[in-house]
């Protein structure tokens, strides 16, 4: 059904806006909303939730009335997932194992395909980058960034 609409992008974006807008509106009522004269902490978020919902409806209207098809272009999802995984892995490792291992995992995941076809290049990137960041952040700017798990 979705595919037959000319503006699937607007339609989906509109749906996201409406869900997020309504959720914000609903959640803002946990805080005191107040009145226009004396706005409570919930007033502004609630108002923005309403504005976002209206924009969502407008986006859907545009998506449904678009005369020329504007489909979502396909993209490879593998890089997105590998990069997401790499960042999460980095965040879990940086404090437990230190920068050198966290960076190794991040770069290995980001350069996953090249790891097989050209491992030396990936190794060179890893050595160069970690060396540079250790010099810049730890040595030059003296940040509390652990290089290994013992310091």
């Amino acid at each position, binding site marked *: 059904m979705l595919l037959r609409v000319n503006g699937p*992008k*607007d339609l989906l*974006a509109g749906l996201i*806006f409406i869900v997020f*807008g309504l959720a*914000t509106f609903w*959640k*803002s009522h946990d*805080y005191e909303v107040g*009145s226009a*004269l*004396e*706005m*409570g*902490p919930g*007033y*502004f*978020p609630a108002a*923005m*939730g309403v*504005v*976002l919902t209206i*924009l*969502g409806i*407008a*986006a859907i209207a*545009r998506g449904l*009335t678009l*005369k*020329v098809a504007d489909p*979502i272009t396909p*993209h*490879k999802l*593998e*890089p*997105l997932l590998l*990069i*997401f995984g*790499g*960042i999460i892995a*980095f*965040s*879990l490792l*940086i*404090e437990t194992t230190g*920068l050198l291992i966290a*960076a190794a995992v*991040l*770069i290995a995941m*980001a*350069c996953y395909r*090249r790891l097989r076809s050209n491992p030396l290049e990936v190794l060179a*990137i890893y050595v160069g*980058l970690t060396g540079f*960041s250790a010099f*810049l*952040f730890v040595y030059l*700017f003296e940040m*509390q*960034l652990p290089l290994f798990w013992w310091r």
Partner: protein
Amino acid sequence: MGVFDNILHGFAVALTPTNLMFCWIGALLGTVVGVLPGINVLTTFAILLPLTFKIDPTAAIVMLSGVYYGAHHSLSTTSIMLNMPGEPSGVVICFDGYPMARQGRAGAALATAALSSFFAGCVGIVIIAFFAPALADASLWFQAPEYTAVCILALIGASVVTSKSKINTLGMAVIGLILGTVGTDIHTGVARFTFGTLELDEGFDFVSFAAGLFAFVEIAFRLGSYDAQVQIKTKLRDLIPRWPDIKAAAMPTVRGTALGAALGVLPGTGPFVASYSAYALESRIAKDPSRFGKGAIEGVAAPEAANNASAFTHYIPMLTLGIPAGAVFSMLMGALMMHGIQPGPEIMTKHPDLFWGLIASMWLGNLMLLVLNLPLIGVWIKLLETPYRFIYPAILLLTCIGCYAVHFRVFDIQVAAFVLLVGYVLEKLDCAPGPVIIAMILGPILEENMRRAMLISGGDATVFLRRPISAFFLLLSVALIVTYVVPTFRRSKKKPGPESLVEAGHAE
């Protein structure tokens, strides 16, 4: 103390070895960022911001500014040599710059661009030095209703001038406003939308969002694209412009500078509006308009001048009102606020070293760029050829470290990772990410002033229309909506207007 004493004082600040070094680093880095594919000013800011805590705020803002105008300067290089604008405002330079390069006049085009941006930069800086203090005095007229209105104008302006869907991008701005409310409410101390987590007590860190939306999403997009990466090859010949070229470019440069400087002062007009208007003006008043698009030197000089003049006058809303003119400025403001400095009318009196030092450093940086850019153009063009597979691991790792180093919390990296996922989906759905960051910074200012305005007026919303300045800004906002958003409902086929030109810029 007159302006001249202040400027002298500024040079004394800017010429200290530390500040001079950071100015140079910034300008150099900006030039590199401007030519390297896949990295822009915002990505660079996300990497540099945590480092700037470690240095003096003046040095920090001097360096970050250097990155900003340095990248603006080298924008023309890729446009002229490769027909590849790094940012929307570069699109206009492509029109005539690239044909010039193909006719073997790349050198003349690059030199013209460098000289006219230097001229425009100098004028822009002088305008800041002379007008910012006067405008800061005028900010006395700015009270809560005016601030509310100007925030709304800045947000709408930043959202509608985009190649993406305008409604969706406005939605992104509102999402940014909502995200900006996360954290402790300053009036009541109520923790909003923190869901019981301590990390969110002070709200989201905008560095995580900048990292996720600009650095990570860009990488995932480029790597996931089915379009083959083009390998770039360039050639360059004579660099010295000939006398007729200089003569032909002189007046367009002056006109472009004037137009760009004037447009730059208004919050909510991007550099694209400035360079496009300058190009349109030149092609209209030219004796032989048919030369435009085929390598007319005026078509390079004027938009380049307008672009750079507006790059500098864009500082005025931030320095005089504390209102950012775009995503870059919202990050500059964030950097200042992290140092405990509130950008706004008081910055000149409370932090004169910073204010005047920044202005002097801009001039020095501009001079450095002129000296750096032309003789080293060969190096920049070699840099252009750097394959993306070497660039993205660097951006990825440095941004991750940068995110972590803001508060030394892994939470911020994880936020950035989830922003990547959501931002990726939204980008696929034609939502431009820039307004999110602007709105996150502007949100608290907008809410605070709206509350105050309503309290003062006794709950009467017409106060925004009864005061002339705020009425003017709101009218301008409505005009922007009418010109940009309303037609998106009616138009079935895209006609070649400014929007499709911006699109070409993003297609890069």
